[in-house]
């Protein structure tokens, strides 16, 4: 049951984009088409899970034994940046089809604050290794869900008659606000 609570909280109640404001740049940037949104969601799922796993080990098996917790930010960001590069190289060699699907999104992910954010939140939330991985996957699903719903709305938005001053980015933010309002309806269910 506890696993279900973690997942529902991360995906719906505290949605990483709409309630915690992490990963806004890709949320606004790559949400024009549903296809790209799905690709980005997949890439984030992959990297976020891997990054949380690795940063967890660094935090508890390298930094903590030596009392170096204050180096958390610097080591996490370096590990994530290196990890993304490595994933890119390995994917290119091993699975060109997967690379084609996710490849163009990978460089964008290093500066996606959702990845670093979830790595830090896993530590702050006192999760174990299993809990942390579940939490990371759930957050990535939450990210993908928000992104895909938003892309679906934006595809329709292109056909609408929007007041001139609000066209483009401003109306997207208003729509995101309404979406966030809808997600607030989930609060209090767990």
């Amino acid at each position, binding site marked *: 049951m506890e696993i279900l609570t973690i997942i529902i909280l991360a995906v719906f109640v505290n949605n990483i984009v709409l309630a915690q404001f992490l990963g806004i740049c890709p949320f606004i940037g790559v949400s024009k088409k549903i296809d790209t949104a799905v690709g980005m969601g997949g890439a984030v799922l992959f990297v976020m899970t891997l990054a949380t796993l690795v940063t967890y080990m660094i935090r508890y098996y390298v930094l903590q034994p030596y009392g170096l917790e204050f180096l958390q*930010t610097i080591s996490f960001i370096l590990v994530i940046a290196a990890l993304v590069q490595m994933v890119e190289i390995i994917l290119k060699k091993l699975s060109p089809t997967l690379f084609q699907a996710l490849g163009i999104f990978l460089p964008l992910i290093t500066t996606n604050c959702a990845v670093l954010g979830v790595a830090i939140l896993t530590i702050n939330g006192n999760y174990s290794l299993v809990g942390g991985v579940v939490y990371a996957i759930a957050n990535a699903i939450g990210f993908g869900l928000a992104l895909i719903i938003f892309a679906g709305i934006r595809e329709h938005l292109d056909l609408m008659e929007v007041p001139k001053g609000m066209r483009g980015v401003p109306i997207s933010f208003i729509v995101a606000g*309404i979406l966030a309002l809808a997600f607030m309806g989930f609060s209090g269910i767990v």
Partner: protein
Amino acid sequence: MSIKETLSKGFIKENPVFILLLGLCPTLGVTTSAINGLGMGLATAFVLIMSNLVVSIIKNQIPNKVRIPSFIVIIASFVTIVDLVMNAYVPALHEQLGLFIPLIVVNCVVLGRAEAFASKNTVFNSIIDGLGMGIGFTFALTLLGAVREILGSGAFFGLSVPIYPIDEGGSPVTMLVFVLAPGAFIGLGYLISIMNRISKS
């Protein structure tokens, strides 16, 4: 470009938030009040100026291929310094900003300016550029924070703005949605629209 131009461009014309749409996560995440927006803006501005300074000093000693990792280390160091100092001297604000302080490291404005400006320009110009962008970022966050605070909690920098009716419990009846998550998106949407209009005229 003259100093005055470099300093003022970040304000409206090249505002990192309203026009360039960079650093949106902290912009939305911490601006529940004007003081939070100001604190976050100043913290980011400090990192921006210091990393611009260091990058422009050592730009010729860094081989091209390890440019980005070196910049990230420099930025992350200054972020950690800000994090530690704020935790020690302004613990209440540090707690409010929380996760978004370490996340300055992935703020596209900071790495973007180091890469696009400081790695190609003189030390003096890089500081001015960092200052200009930092002021622009702080301005944007404080403005959004002030708008949300006035509409959502009926206050401005913590001082109450007596324009709302009072309920029987003694607190003003405000548009609560603006301090909640949806209000961040909606408020920023309108501000971007207004700023676009101003920068075009």
